[in-house]
């Protein structure tokens, strides 16, 4: 009798233990989720949001369905002719409803601004027009770097990009970025109005399975120059404007997607020269002439082009994606033809 009681108690105890373990497992399982179908979480765009390469999509990053949470780390490397972009960050998707992201972008500029730096040194030298004035152009003797912190958030508003194949209503999300550019001195030299600013966007995404195609259209409300890497606004002010972006992707296999993207860029600094020590380079013309550098002001005119890219994204499994692209970014500040390869890795957990 006593023995039976003991056994019974032990049984209760172990049952309670099993229940506790089960409960904790269920709680964990409910939090962490990788229930999306392979590739449908998209990749990480350069600002860190879920999307394509340069455009945020209406999809929520990561593999979590509405049943849970899933996050990823991303790294993007884009060696262009005169610049190299490194972008590292993390993003988390919550219940396929909203996402948060943080990304640190670092743009090394190589020898791009060496000429500007040389002029600044010359102009600020003992015989220059700005003699005796310390000039901080933000240009280092070697490898001037532009760092930018990007915090992003996105909320899915309505629509189904994937399941509602029987209607044309896209998935709609709204989101925003807060970007803080660290090289304020260089931005001043390049005449940007602001070093930190926010931008907002609305994205519409739809997958058309009968033709294996994804279409995303985004409208971004921003004053960014080169996504903010060259600051925000210009001599004409820092007013934001709406700029369209489009991604077209073809689903080649369940683990491979190819596509093209286009992002409209602004003209805040279009045709602007560079500014050194509060002086426009054109005003420095006499000094430059006397130094035999009369042709420099023409080559130091800034331009900005729309961005294009063609990509192939490969998803070997839900823990990893690799995006290879050819990015055609055109004119960036004073240098034309900034085209080059682009590699982006995303590790999901």
């Amino acid at each position, binding site marked *: 009798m006593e023995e039976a009681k003991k056994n019974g108690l032990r049984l209760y105890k172990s049952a309670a233990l099993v229940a506790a373990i089960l409960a904790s497992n269920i709680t964990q399982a409910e939090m962490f989720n990788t*229930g999306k179908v*392979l590739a449908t979480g998209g990749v990480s765009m350069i600002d860190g949001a879920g999307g394509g390469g340069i455009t945020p999509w209406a999809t929520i990053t990561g593999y979590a369905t509405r*049943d849970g949470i899933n996050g990823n780390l991303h790294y993007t490397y884009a060696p262009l002719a005169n610049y190299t972009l490194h972008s590292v960050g993390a993003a988390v998707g919550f219940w396929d409803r909203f996402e948060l992201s943080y990304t640190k972008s670092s743009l090394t500029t190589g020898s791009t601004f060496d000429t500007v730096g040389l002029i600044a040194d010359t102009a600020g030298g003992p015989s220059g027009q700005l003699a005796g004035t310390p000039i901080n152009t933000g240009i280092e003797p070697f490898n001037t770097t532009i760092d930018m912190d990007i915090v992003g958030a996105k909320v899915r508003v309505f629509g*189904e990009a994937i399941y509602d*194949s*029987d209607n044309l209503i896209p998935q709609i999300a709204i989101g925003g970025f807060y970007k803080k550019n660290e090289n304020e001195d260089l931005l001043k030299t390049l005449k940007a109005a602001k070093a930190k600013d926010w931008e907002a966007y609305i994205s519409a995404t739809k997958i058309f*399975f*009968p033709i294996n195609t994804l279409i995303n259209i985004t409208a971004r409300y921003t004053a960014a120059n080169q996504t903010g890497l060259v600051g925000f606004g210009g001599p004409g002010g820092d007013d934001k404007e709406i700029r369209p972006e489009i991604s077209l992707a073809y689903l080649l296999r369940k683990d491979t997607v190819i596509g093209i993207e286009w992002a409209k860029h602004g003209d805040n600094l279009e045709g602007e020269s560079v500014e050194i020590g509060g002086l426009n380079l054109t005003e420095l013309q006499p000094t430059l002439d006397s130094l035999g550098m009369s042709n420099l002001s023409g080559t130091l005119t800034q331009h900005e082009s729309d961005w294009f890219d063609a990509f192939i994204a490969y998803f070997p499994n839900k823990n990893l994606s690799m995006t290879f692209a050819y990015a055609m970014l055109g004119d960036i500040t004073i240098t034309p033809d900034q085209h080059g390869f682009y590699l982006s890795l995303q590790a999901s957990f």
Partner: protein
Amino acid sequence: MKPIFRTIAIAILAGTAALPSYAQTAETNTFPGLDDDAVQQWGGEEGVRNWVESLFYYIMLDNRINHVFREFGNIERQIYLNTQLTQLVLGGAVEYQGASMAAAHADLGITVTQFNAVVEAAYLACERVTVTYEACNQLIAALAPYERVIVTR
């Protein structure tokens, strides 16, 4: 208890006028439309049947969903009905003798994660029976809207 609950669930769903198209299962009207020869791309009835058998093989290997199908019982009949359903939603001229998708799943408490697990099994089955990815996506498009009635959690 269970049949009663199911009856109530069907009654509630039937009363939900927002889902009239699912009372009568038929070819899915997708945007853009499915290929006219979608069933042929799948190798006709025989090809579809092969795929459904392969689908159940992969479903039974997936612990997220196998218990749901096992508890439903009579796998042979499920394969038989799914062969009809697959042809039907792809535009095949067959009679479907099963329950509507809403009725069949009403009290199963299916999550979107489980729905996606079946989608993953569907792709694996397509690869196994060499239905092309493009043809497979015809079916994914045709079945995707059923997510709204199959997923109840």
